[in-house]
């Protein structure tokens, strides 16, 4: 053991990037090297804890397979032959190519794909706005963003803040903090001691379901029926908050009439729950006020029914009077005391005619300029501030990949990929891989050589969590912030993504718009207004060392003063924003993406129901498969199915099996568990094999066990409101792979 008490060891307040929690990390630094890390006991999120991923930070920082220098392609695309060049040369050449694309095809022919919470995405949006392209995107459509926007349309700002110490019940709707947000799980376990009731809605008996007071194992993708039937029970039995509904909601009578059809008896066969269970759960939620409904990615990933389900779920919170009350779902609004990400994005600089060209905005209108523009307008009337456009207002990723391949609605010639491997992360993986191979100019900002980076013209080495500062503010829409500092300067020629966009901007006539030369200078600019509240600091690092965080005092019932931030100043159960965009103003039943009722013929061929996309330990998204200190916990891809189903198919525990949908098939080992319905199959996300060769049609085995080979992004499988595609509730079949083990 290294002695951490030596005089020359400095302790830096850093954080972790290996999920969205950004847990606090103390980094012990000597001579410019991090010699040890541990969880920061004073960090409000993790209080000293770190999950298995957090604990391998140094293995990640110093891994021999990391990309450490800018690389320019010298061989054929995909040949994995590179020339190392200086950062400045790479940026010069990339800038020249982007200028060329803009001149010949328009700025909109340049698109960017991003990853999650390890980048300064306002900087990316700032660059794109100034460059003139509306085509930035993330996997946002699959992860909270449509939920945020639907809820904001209805109640003026998504009520995502919690006040759980005062809550009596929490509904975890497709959320499994026991595998994907461990600090949250700790909080729940603590509060359960004090009597908090936990309802877990999940097809699987997860780490969290195992701790719940009530587990509702619904058919994957049938959430819409469940939410509508809860509305039916709560309204029919008079369990709603009549005063709140009378004073603060519009559209209640129509809603009451509308949901009469959605009885628990109607929902039972659709959800595979029984009517008694549905009633009991609705009672547990509505009769234990105040209560909180938590978001999980699941509803964002059910495709066509996503928007309607989010709408119904938002109305449950409203009619039970749980909005912004102590112990309820709090509406904090934007950060009023520091400069928000949105204010850094320079959205006004993107001309209207360019906004109109955003790919997907004609089909999916809520989380693109039409819907975002309206919501931002209302928000600015209320607060003078708006939600972040990066995340909340994005091109539709799958439509961009199709535009690359088809030229429809117009050709996309250049793609910059930052902090994501789209072949793993987006639906219909085979199509994504083709798009990456075909796009004329591809740049990837990465830690590793992936199946996406492989086809790039340039790969740029990016600094990780310990090598850069971080402001955590929940996608730029929290009213608080938690700040971390860089423990060390980036190693080798690694740079931050901020530097990438800054340096590119300087080469493309944006120099005067990038006055901050470092991440810290930009962050200092953002937090400087806190000085007015007494946070007097001389630099960003000074803020981290002295304060680390800013949390405004919690307020309740803020709407009592000025109403809700909607056009009517009330909670719009009947949503004017959705109506203006041409969507149903009340939530109307939509079935699972593929299902036995609507398509019995398909169900004959594919009799099982697939769920995928859920987080699991020890991996995160497509990360960590090369870290042997984690991989030993799960060396092979494992799917879950019920032992009785397996027996009927001649499958034994540990057998290699194929899971097949109408799109393709993937190979996993069978993990047999009674924690899943006989007709449900769980296939985890993210798998690839960094240890395999880049050669051939399946580089690094990225298609062999990649669940996104099974998923669909075709327009009829996407939510017309928010654009979410279908990861869950798809039909599949499973059969043994006769070849078994292979290299």
């Amino acid at each position, binding site marked *: 053991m290294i002695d951490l008490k030596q005089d020359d060891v400095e302790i830096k307040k850093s954080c972790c990037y290996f999920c969205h929690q950004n847990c606090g990390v103390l980094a012990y630094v000597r001579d410019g090297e991090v010699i040890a890390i541990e969880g920061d006991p004073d960090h409000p999120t993790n209080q000293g804890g770190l999950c298995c991923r957090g604990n391998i930070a140094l*293995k990640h920082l110093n891994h021999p397979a990391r990309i450490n220098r800018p690389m320019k392609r010298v061989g054929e695309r995909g040949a994995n032959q590179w020339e190392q060049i200086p950062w400045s040369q790479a940026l010069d050449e990339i800038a020249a190519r982007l200028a060329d694309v803009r001149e010949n095809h328009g700025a909109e022919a340049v698109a960017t794909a991003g990853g999650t919470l390890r980048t300064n995405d306002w900087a990316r949006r700032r660059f794109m706005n100034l460059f003139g392209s509306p085509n930035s995107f993330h996997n946002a459509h699959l992860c909270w963003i449509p939920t945020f926007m639907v809820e904001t349309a209805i109640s003026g700002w998504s009520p995502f803040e919690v006040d759980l110490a005062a809550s009596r019940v929490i509904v975890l709707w497709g959320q499994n903090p026991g595998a994907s947000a461990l600090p949250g799980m700790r909080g729940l376990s603590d509060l359960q001691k004090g009597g908090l009731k936990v309802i877990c809605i999940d097809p699987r008996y997860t780490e969290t379901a195992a701790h719940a*007071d009530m587990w509702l194992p619904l058919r994957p993708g049938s959430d819409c029926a469940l939410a509508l039937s809860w509305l039916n029970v709560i309204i029919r039995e008079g369990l709603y908050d009549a005063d709140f509904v009378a004073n603060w909601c519009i559209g209640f009578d129509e809603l009451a009439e509308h949901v009469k059809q959605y009885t628990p008896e109607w929902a039972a066969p659709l959800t595979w729950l029984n009517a008694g269970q549905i009633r009991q759960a609705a009672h547990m939620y509505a009769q234990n006020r105040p209560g909180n409904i938590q978001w999980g990615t699941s509803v964002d990933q059910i495709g066509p029914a996503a928007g309607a389900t989010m709408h119904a779920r938002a109305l449950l919170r409203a009619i039970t009077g749980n909005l912004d009350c102590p112990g309820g779902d709090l509406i904090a609004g934007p950060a009023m005391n520091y400069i928000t990400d949105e204010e850094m994005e320079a959205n006004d600089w993107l001309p209207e005619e360019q906004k109109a060209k955003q790919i997907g905005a004609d089909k999916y209108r809520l989380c693109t300029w039409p819907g975002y523009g309206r919501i931002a307008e209302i928000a600015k009337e209320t607060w003078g501030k708006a939600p972040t456009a990066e995340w909340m207002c994005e091109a539709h990723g799958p439509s961009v990949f199709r535009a690359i391949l088809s030229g429809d609605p117009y050709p996309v010639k250049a793609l910059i990929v930052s902090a994501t491997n789209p072949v793993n992360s987006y639906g219909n993986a085979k199509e994504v891989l083709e798009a990456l191979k075909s796009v004329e100019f591809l740049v990837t900002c990465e830690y590793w050589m992936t199946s996406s980076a492989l086809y790039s013209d340039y790969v740029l080495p990016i600094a990780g969590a310990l090598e850069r500062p971080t402001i955590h503010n929940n996608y730029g829409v929290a009213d608080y912030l938690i700040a971390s500092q860089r423990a060390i300067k980036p190693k080798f020629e690694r740079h931050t993504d901020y530097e990438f966009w800054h340096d590119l901007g300087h080469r493309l006539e944006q120099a005067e718009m990038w006055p901050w030369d470092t991440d810290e200078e930009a962050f200092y600019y953002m937090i400087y207004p806190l000085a007015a509240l007494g946070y007097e600091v001389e630099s960003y690092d000074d803020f981290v060392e002295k304060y680390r965080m800013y949390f405004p005092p919690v307020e309740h019932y803020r709407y009592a003063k000025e109403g809700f931030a909607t056009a009517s100043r009330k909670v719009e159960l009947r949503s004017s924003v959705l109506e203006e965009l041409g969507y149903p103003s009340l939530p109307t039943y939509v079935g699972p993406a593929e299902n036995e009722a609507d398509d019995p013929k398909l169900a004959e061929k594919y009799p099982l129901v697939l769920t995928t996309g859920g987080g699991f330990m020890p991996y995160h998204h497509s990360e960590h498969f090369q870290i042997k200190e984690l991989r030993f916990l799960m060396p092979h891809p494992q799917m879950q199915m019920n032992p009785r189903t397996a027996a009927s198919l001649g499958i034994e525990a540990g057998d290699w099996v194929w899971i097949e949908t109408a799109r393709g098939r993937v190979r996993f080992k069978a993990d047999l568990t*009674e924690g899943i319905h006989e007709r449900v199959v769980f296939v985890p996300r993210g798998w690839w094999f960094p240890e395999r060769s880049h050669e051939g049609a399946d580089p690094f085995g990225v298609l062999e066990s990649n669940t996104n080979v099974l998923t669909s992004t075709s327009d009829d499988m996407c939510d017309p409101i928010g654009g979410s595609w279908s990861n869950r509730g798809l039909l599949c079949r499973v059969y043994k792979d006769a070849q078994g083990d292979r290299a």
Partner: protein
Amino acid sequence: MTRYAMVMDTRRCISCHSCTVACRTWNELPIDLIHNPVLTDGPVGTFPNVHMTHMPLICMHCDSPACVAACPTGASQQDPDGVVWVEETKCIGCKSCIQSCPYNARHVNHELGIAAKCDFCKIRVREGKEPYCVQTCHQRARIFGDLDDPRSEVSKLVGSVRTVRLLEERRTEPHVFYIIGTGGQG
């Protein structure tokens, strides 16, 4: 006197394996050495009526440690505060301790050629910190402290909640106490 002990609250453990990985990275152990495995039983039952329990394991820091008795060189030893540890320079790698330990808590560190074990992170503990597996556990399923101090959480728990010790019949007097239960009860 100080007598260090640990309580494992199986009502809170979710088998995230943070402790397993964290112990190894913090203590810079080889990839094939695990001091902190977590065993899972379940889901038991028939869908949807199932339950699941997780059992974190570790050296039991026994009062009558079989490994210390079996060690021919005195490398395996116990401090007055109960911590059982190995003095690396005295260990000859004879594996007597591995055979004697009823808890399978002793393993060969092939890099060092010695029979390694958990030492309750005694360096950290003497600095006033918790063993690293305890600090890293988000779920607070592991509680560490001085059993002889009536104000410590471990002594309060052992005095007030039903706990069990593993393989009591071996008379090693293990000092890891298990609260047995299923999720959501703790």
